């Protein structure tokens, strides 16, 4: 059975290692924070200028001056710091952030990513995504394997305008965990009950399948 959004978030949470600084994009990536085991020491950076983000505030304790990049009211944990946008992107560009998790509309078998613009539609902008993907050494994409029309979003080449080139390392979809290798998408895990054949059928880019593909372990 394909994962739901929470399932994807839970699986990605397993990629978060002790000592990581992590930047989470809007959407599914934001959910990941909820599923990182408490014994793992991790600090969340938000590009609008905070390191050491905590949970949402208790009702009535919202502070309009303390938000994340999704413009949500948040709190800080002990050891947190605030900084300006330039220093924030120095953290990102300078590879001080260990892991970036973000959504995508399309990913190519070479690791190109498109997640900011659909020609002909209203464009909201790339925000910090282009800086993040151009810099991060460890980028995990959380995305749906197919679009609403049932077409693959894991492509030979992206059809949409790019956000960055050859940058994605890993992809977690509702169907599979995949790694970008010099050959293309390498299938690492499949969602419980989802067959390799099915994953192949909805992956337009080259899919490398080596040996037996285990099911994802979640929870």
């Amino acid at each position, binding site marked *: 059975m394909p994962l739901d959004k929470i399932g994807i978030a839970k699986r990605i949470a397993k990629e978060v290692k002790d000592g990581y600084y992590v930047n989470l994009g809007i959407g599914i990536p934001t959910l990941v924070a909820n599923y990182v085991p408490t014994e793992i020491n991790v600090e969340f950076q938000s590009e609008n200028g905070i390191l050491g983000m905590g949970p949402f505030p208790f009702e009535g304790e919202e502070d309009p001056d303390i938000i994340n990049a999704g413009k949500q*009211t948040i709190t800080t944990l002990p050891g947190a710091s605030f900084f*300006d946008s330039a220093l924030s992107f120095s953290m990102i560009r300078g590879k001080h952030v260990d892991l970036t998790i973000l959504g995508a509309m399309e990913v190519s078998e070479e690791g190109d990513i498109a997640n900011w613009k659909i020609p002909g539609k209203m464009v909201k902008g790339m925000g910090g995504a282009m800086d993040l993907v151009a810099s991060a050494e460890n980028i995990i994409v959380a995305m749906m394997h197919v679009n609403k029309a049932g077409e693959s979003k894991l492509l030979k080449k992206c059809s949409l*305008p790019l956000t960055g080139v050859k940058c994605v390392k890993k992809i977690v979809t509702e169907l599979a965990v995949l790694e970008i290798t010099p050959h293309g998408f390498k299938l690492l895990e499949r969602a419980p009950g989802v067959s390799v054949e099915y994953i192949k059928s909805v992956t337009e880019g080259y899919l490398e399948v080596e040996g037996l593909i285990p099911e994802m372990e979640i929870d």
Partner: protein
Amino acid sequence: MISKKVNSVQEALSGITDDMIIMLGGFGLCGIPENSINHLVKMGVKNLTCISNNAGVDDFGLGLLLQKKQIKKMISSYVGENEEFERQMLSGELEVELIPQGTLAERCKAAQGGFPAFFTPAGYGTEVADGKETREFNGKMYVLETAFDADFAIVKAWKGDEAGNLIFRGTARNFNPCMCGAAKITIAEVEEMVPLGGLDPDCIHIPGIFVQRIFQGERYEKRIEQRTVRPAKTAL
């Protein structure tokens, strides 16, 4: 000490005229110069080019200037959450230049610090790099980006003194410090003017040299864009 204090938003914004390029601090609605934006609406200046990470919402922040069609061009990284913006953009009334957020911040810093240009990896291989010089350093590709050239920078700080020294609060800091001194004239509005010597010299985020005018804003709404909360703590 060189005093930068002016007594009103009118005085602070004097000299801003049609067709100017204005930088405005803030991320979403957080840390925006509310009082100055409201007064720009009153002044009715037109054909502005605004450099600001976002474009406000329909009825707050830069959205107010958009409603009055005072903005000719927006230079931003993200412009969602604004219907009037969308309408003007799709109809071609409004020019929009989208820039990666880190590049936006650094083009301000470059202007502040007298650097004409710098290489950044952001946008390489995308349409952002179209027409720009690209170059390899140590096996990686970078794009050459240039400093902004703006007439006014309008920023919002938490506390300030008459020397123009500024302290920001929380994530309301964002682009504000980067824009100080990045335009010909920098105007700072603050929630609280403190007496000279009231700010710890070690804790000043922006030294007064980067600020030409400072005033205390009359009123701050500080609207929240996404109110996200946990259930209230209950007494044991």
